[in-house]
């Protein structure tokens, strides 16, 4: 089989970009098994840094806090994101719509230092007036939710736009009240998008440094903050082991999720086809 010049260029370009994207990740993984304390000199295979990680209470405590924040952020982001997506999808005209859309979309691109600083300065003022909230879990959660909500809205909104309005109209015609329509028709149809939005916002929160650094308080250091402060000082083998474990968990999770989703997608397609045949 002869491959055309165009096809060759295309394959080469894609391979080069994927190489670029994955090279750092594979380097991290390989060097996490490095015996040598000199992080980028290979000194033989070893699991010593994993043993060290198991005793690293700073990282482990940070990880526990990060998990809690990320879990809460995922939940609050998809709830607010669903409301915001419904608003943008359903209500084309209401006072403040442009402002609303701008406020939903801006956190997607707004530099995190601005989000972090402005939220912190506001929270400090609120605290001076009312004596709460203290900086910690709650304030980090609030900041992450602002960011997560924006991503969740985009994902859920694009699903709403693909959805045929006739399904909801049919339910309405058959006498369902708006809340019933939402819970019986809309929510099941967008459930997959909600699941991906939850996963994405969970990951974003687990990864965030800048917003957390502004909003954390004494005793509430998330894992990325610890990793960042170590990475600032220089190369540190503990960072590599964390990276490898993250990659392992993420790849397993993403593959499992994509299999589940493609199954759900197929089942839905089959059901739809059956429904059309029946009708």
């Amino acid at each position, binding site marked *: 089989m002869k491959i055309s010049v165009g096809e060759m260029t295309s394959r080469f370009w894609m391979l080069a970009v994927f190489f670029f*994207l994955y090279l750092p990740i594979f380097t991290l993984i390989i060097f996490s098994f490095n015996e040598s304390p000199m992080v980028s000199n290979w000194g033989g295979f070893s699991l010593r840094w994993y043993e060290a990680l198991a005793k690293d209470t700073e990282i482990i405590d940070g990880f526990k806090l990060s998990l809690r924040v990320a879990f809460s952020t995922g939940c609050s982001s998809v709830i607010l994101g669903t409301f915001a997506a419904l608003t943008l999808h359903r209500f084309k005209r209401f006072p403040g719509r442009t402002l609303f859309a701008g406020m939903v979309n801006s956190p997607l691109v707004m530099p995190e230092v601005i989000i972090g600083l*402005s939220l912190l*300065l506001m929270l400090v003022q609120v605290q001076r007036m009312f004596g709460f909230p203290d900086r910690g879990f709650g304030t980090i959660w609030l900041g992450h939710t602002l960011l997560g909500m924006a991503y969740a809205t985009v994902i859920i909104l694009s699903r709403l*736009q693909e959805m045929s309005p006739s399904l909801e109209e049919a339910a309405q015609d058959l006498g369902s009240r708006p809340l019933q329509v939402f819970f019986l028709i809309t929510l099941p149809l967008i459930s997959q998008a909600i699941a991906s939005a939850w996963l994405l916002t969970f990951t974003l929160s687990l990864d965030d440094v800048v917003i957390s*650094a502004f909003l954390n308080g004494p005793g509430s250091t998330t894992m990325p903050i610890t990793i960042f402060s170590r990475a600032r000082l220089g190369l540190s083998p503990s960072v590599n082991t964390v*990276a490898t474990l993250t990659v392992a968990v993420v790849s397993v999770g993403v593959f499992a999720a994509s299999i589940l989703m493609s199954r759900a997608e197929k089942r839905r397609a089959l059901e739809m086809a059956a429904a059309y045949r029946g009708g």
Partner: protein
Amino acid sequence: MAPSTHKVSSLYGKVTGAWGRTAVISVPMIFLLIVFLLPFLVVFKISLSEMDAVFFKDVWTWKEDVIALTVRYGNYVSLTQDSLYINSYLSSLKIAGITTVICLGIAYPFAYFMARSPADRRPTLLMLVMLPFWTSFLLRVYAWKMLLADSGVFNNVAIAIGLIGEPVKMMNTPFSLVLGMVYTYVPFMILPLYANLVKMDLRLLEAALDLGATPWQAFWRITVPLSKSGIIAGSMLVFIPCVGEFVIPDLLGGPETLMIGHVLWDEFFSNNDWPMAATVAVVMVGLIIVPLSLFNKYQAESTEGGRA
């Protein structure tokens, strides 16, 4: 709206409908007003105050039934007089601009080839682009530090195979900074471009070719103009956050590449000068307000473009 809904919706339905509508709109609206808009107003207010010994002075004072507004624009004046700020604003814009152009150069052909590859291969390719996105961004930036350091992987390998005798300095230079920025942000360019290119009506290209255009002409005169909105969206998704980026310049940048996000961070965390940090933030918002509204306009259009 289908005419039959009028028949169905009783008075009760109308009432819950209106109430539901208000509830659906107001929950995210109130959240955003309090958590997104209000903080900006607070930042603006604080940028007009100044530091006393431990805390910033309030702009509003209320003493003996007199509300006094004291605006101190001294922070803005020192911003224009100190070359540190001006230089870092300019270099942030420059680095963000360079990053955006390189990202576009890498991502456009990539997204184009991806959109034109067989339909059954596209989901896998898309997932491969997204996958690094799911692993920690911080760790991936850190990995470049390992690769580029003086005794890093690249230098070690190059010395081992005799390509170079001395380590080449790559870390903490404009090169390592831009590399890290491009690496981090290139998926944000690929995704909107791909979404745009994959939807393109290929019959338009066929028509152009039938009418005698060369493939190259057809590409520049049909494909590129049609993908304009994808180019704008991708460029804004890269440019705006790059202007204020902090983590990448901190880990990979050097003394020659001072960026404004970093200046803000130092004002806040090292100098504890909150009003100055707020001033830097206000001016940064001023820098990105035009690209930001361009981005919002694009997002709004893609929202209106739905089937509903």
